[in-house]
């Protein structure tokens, strides 16, 4: 590896951005941020800034995708050209196609698909700024947008990653740690149901480190889950004040 690279974790276990190993980046969530979408959410997760909009349940487009016995969830994860250091072409990359698929599959277990035959819910995720862990933050925001659209859910879905940087298992990797670290384990989790709906990994981990990383990511998810619920409630508290 590059000799000029700074140590990602110092002797006291403090990471380059000042966090401890099991510390999350600051997370800010907002619900109902768009006027035309049926549901919407905005997340700032560290330097990640991501907007999610949900439409539906509505007619399925194109029509041949319609299912007679259940709802169809479609998700598009897309990065803005200015969201990363080098301009990203706005055309969907293979990475974005894969992420759209895994994000969809991470939200689906939360929905009662069979109760809404012949309908579709579309979720559009726009990454406005990326700094590592966008798929997880996108899931957190997408689930909130679907909930905001009033679609019944078994639980909210939360995304959070853990990984290995130098020899330490750490929570919530940011861009530099993701690129220079040894492994990244993004997880999506439904805390009340204790169900993992997304799990990916790249890098090298011993089985024991893998177990630790998954547990750490789930703990991170539980913390963000509280913020998600708070954000949903906050929207309705504001509405109430206006009415009075």
């Amino acid at each position, binding site marked *: 590896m590059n000799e000029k690279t700074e140590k990602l974790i110092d002797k006291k276990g403090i990471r380059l951005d000042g966090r401890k190993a099991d510390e999350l980046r600051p997370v800010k969530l907002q619900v109902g941020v768009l006027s035309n979408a049926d549901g919407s959410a905005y997340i700032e997760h560290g330097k990640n800034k991501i907007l999610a909009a949900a439409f539906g349940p509505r007619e399925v487009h194109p029509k041949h995708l319609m299912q007679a016995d259940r709802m169809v969830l479609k998700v598009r994860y897309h990065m803005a050209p200015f969201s990363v250091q080098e301009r990203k072409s706005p055309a969907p990359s*293979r990475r974005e196609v894969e992420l759209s698929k895994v994000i969809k599959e991470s939200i689906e277990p939360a929905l009662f698909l069979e109760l809404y035959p012949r309908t579709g819910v579309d979720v559009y995720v726009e990454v406005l700024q990326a700094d590592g862990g966008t798929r997880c933050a996108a899931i957190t925001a997408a689930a909130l947008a679907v909930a905001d659209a009033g679609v019944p859910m078994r639980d909210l879905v939360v995304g959070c990653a853990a990984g290995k940087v130098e020899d330490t298992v750490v929570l919530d990797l940011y861009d530099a740690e993701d690129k220079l670290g040894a492994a990244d384990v993004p997880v999506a989790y439904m805390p009340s149901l204790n169900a993992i709906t997304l799990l990916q990994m790249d890098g090298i981990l011993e089985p024991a480190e893998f177990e630790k990383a998954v547990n750490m990511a789930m703990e991170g998810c539980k913390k963000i889950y509280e913020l998600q619920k708070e954000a949903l409630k906050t929207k309705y508290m504001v509405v109430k004040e206006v009415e009075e």
Partner: protein
Amino acid sequence: MSSLVTKVRLRQIEQLIEKGKRLDDRGLLDTREIKIEQGIIEKAEGSARVFMGKTQILVGVKVGLGEPFPDTPNEGVLTVNAELVPVASPSFEPGPPDENSIELARVVDRGIRESKCIDNEKLCIEPGKKVFVVFVDIYVLDHGGNLIDASAIAAMAALLNTKMPNYEIKDGELKMKQGYTPLPLRSHPVTVTIGKINNKLITDPIAEEEQVMDSRITFATKEDGTICAIQKGGSGYFTPQQILEASKIALDKAAELRKKLDW
């Protein structure tokens, strides 16, 4: 799409799995026999065909010349692509790669890349300017289920069979020489996918089982028992306990497979 007959069939699979049995008489964690043929495409620098039950995958490896990525100027380039060819299944249609073939290619790619299987620095000809590019093309010829594991084995078998052209640099010019050397490989990743049907874990699902599967999880592992890539798929979930159980099964099955294949 799902006719009455298939609905009945799917119900039958679920009932069998409940009893710990399967349509093809295997136990829940038994894998199908694997047959590998190598070097069957003479025009490719490497190739392999893998049979796993009814599943048939052909992988061709072409080695070309190209430029390295700016952030890795002295490393060769690996490109993995997958085609779900229409001959393989009535559900595969011609056209540009869909999300399923992109996911298949990217999961196989991750296993090879993260295990550092190919010694990329040995593929460098002139740092920053010229390197060998290894194109791994996965051709799904018959879809009998578990395409990820079969494709990963086929890709590895094809890489083991791959030869790089010899070259020399004379007066700053690249000249190809007679003969070939084997592609420099350092490890052999083995990929094992675990499926979940009604809260039961199974290995090596056939295509019909995949239709009733809630979700799957794929582990790519190395010789030393470390995990180098994971992918969960499907619209169901796993409990944390199931994930750990699946990872243990995957590591066991990978070790079994390594013994069989001598990888």
